[in-house]
């Protein structure tokens, strides 16, 4: 922790991670991860289960404080160290500047609140107090993520896994964030639903010019959605590069193992 909340940034980057480490006691969650994310860029984090992908994502998204290192996010002309500012400001950023799509929809949705209400929450958090406008925006976003408007007032507990995942995406995007974190967005979905969700994600990211950090163990997802890849193993970054380059010409032994382990359909 430097104690300095903001630093001048002339590079135009959106998110900068510097030597981010998180340990659970003696156990390493992730260690010394550094990278820079640019506006509109989609970054993939791949690696096997337990390689620290989700731990890293939680640190980047402000959910967990790193044991060491800094995470800086662009606010205006400055880069703000999100763990050096008060929790109140960090929570405000988490509600407006970025969003998180959780692996398990139950972590990202309020299961007892209707689909429309879930989308409405980010808007009222942002100060919107006009029912008609909230309703219209929620309805529009549900349509964009291909959820039937007739099911707007049903609780997500009655939705299928794919719909819950799409609802999470609508809930996050309605407030117009610049960055979205996704933790295994296609986890637990069957292949055809996965394909539609990926189509949707690709279209949304392209249309909105969003930056995204996507954690996945599925290399096909990574190839389809991401511009750049970080390969993790045992909490450390073993290889980074453009997605095509990493997947087609892996340099590190572990990446080679990972890419060769994919089953050909």
């Amino acid at each position, binding site marked *: 922790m430097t104690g300095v909340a903001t630093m001048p940034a002339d590079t135009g980057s959106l998110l900068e991670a510097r030597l981010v480490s998180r340990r659970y006691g003696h156990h390493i969650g992730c260690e010394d991860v550094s990278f820079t994310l640019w506006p509109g860029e989609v970054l993939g984090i791949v690696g096997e289960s337990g390689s620290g992908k989700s731990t890293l994502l939680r640190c980047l998204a402000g959910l967990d404080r790193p044991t060491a290192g800094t995470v800086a996010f662009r606010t205006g002309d400055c880069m703000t160290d999100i763990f050096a500012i008060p*929790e*109140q400001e960090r*929570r405000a950023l988490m509600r407006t500047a970025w969003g998180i799509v959780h692996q398990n929809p139950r972590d990202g949705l*309020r299961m007892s*609140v*209707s689909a*429309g*209400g879930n989308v*409405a*929450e980010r808007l*009222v*958090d*942002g100060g919107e*107090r*006009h*029912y*008609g406008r*909230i*309703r219209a925006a929620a309805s529009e976003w549900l349509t964009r993520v291909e959820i039937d408007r007739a099911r*707007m*007032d049903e609780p997500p507990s009655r939705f299928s896994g794919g719909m819950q995942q799409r609802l999470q995406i609508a809930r996050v995007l309605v407030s117009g964030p610049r960055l979205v974190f996704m933790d295994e967005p296609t986890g637990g979905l069957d292949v055809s639903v996965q394909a539609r969700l990926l189509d949707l994600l690709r279209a949304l990211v392209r249309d909105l010019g969003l930056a995204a950090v996507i954690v996945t163990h599925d290399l096909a997802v990574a190839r389809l959605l991401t511009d750049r890849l970080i390969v993790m193993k045992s909490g450390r970054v073993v290889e980074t590069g453009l997605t095509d380059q990493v997947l087609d010409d892996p340099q590190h032994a572990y990446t080679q193992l990972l890419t060769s382990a994919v089953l050909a359909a």
Partner: protein
Amino acid sequence: MTGQIPSGDAMPTVNYAYLDEQTKRMIRRALLKAVAVPGYQVPFGSREMPLARGWGTGGIQVTASIIGPDDKLKVIDQGSDDTTNAVSIRRFFARVANVETTEATGEATIIQTRHRVPEHPLTAGQILVYQVPQPEPLRKLEPSELETRKMHAWAEYGLMHVRLYEDIARFGHVATTYSYPVLVNGRHVMSPSPIPKFDNPKMGQSPALQLFGAGREKRIYAIPPWTEVKSLDFEDRPFEVQRWDEPCALCGAADSYLDEVIIDDAGGHMFVCSDSHYCEERRKAGHAGAMLATSTGGKLAASNGGDR
């Protein structure tokens, strides 16, 4: 501790107003803090009282710490002076605090209430003590106390509007009729205790001091006199109170909160004032509702309040 059993003429006595003086000081300090920060829930060390938690122990402890021999106490339960809870609490304070009790809203200096604000306008110098079962307005939406405290600390009250949104989306209007959340002094969202939302407008800019005690949840909060209290709403769906199609069947009042009373097994019903003292005063003043003239109405009038 001599182990002697007191003889008949030296019966053990409790301290004035039941609570010991240290406890009263502790509660008064909490009350001062609550008044200083309107709507903020102040934790306090809730004591064991001679009735079960959930029966008004918070209100009783607040009343016990502010009451003196010169006070005149009124206790109401759902607006009525005559229900078991109201009668017991009134008798309790008549015994342990040696105070005069009254049913007249205008005469009382302290009014302990469960779930109603009296119809008779309150005046400066009066204190209204509410019994509160659940002081946290966000609890139904956010089960974590750690999280709700943060939400209060940083005025992150979006979630409350999600609740209102849900009501409108499901029922077409805000279906919450009691315990309707309010914003106090432009800062803290507060539960008004389970009073009907009909009473919410009476809380704002009231000349009386309003104190809230939640015994089981160990919280005290307050609204000082002349404080702004705003019921939460949407810009295009303003806050509204309940209305009835007919006036009180006994006193003809069209401006009071009415209870629906079933009077036979053939679907017959009547609407009567929930505030029994207000209804009585109006009848004494010569007002008569539709059912007062009939014989059934007369019988009901005699037992009004006691049957609820």
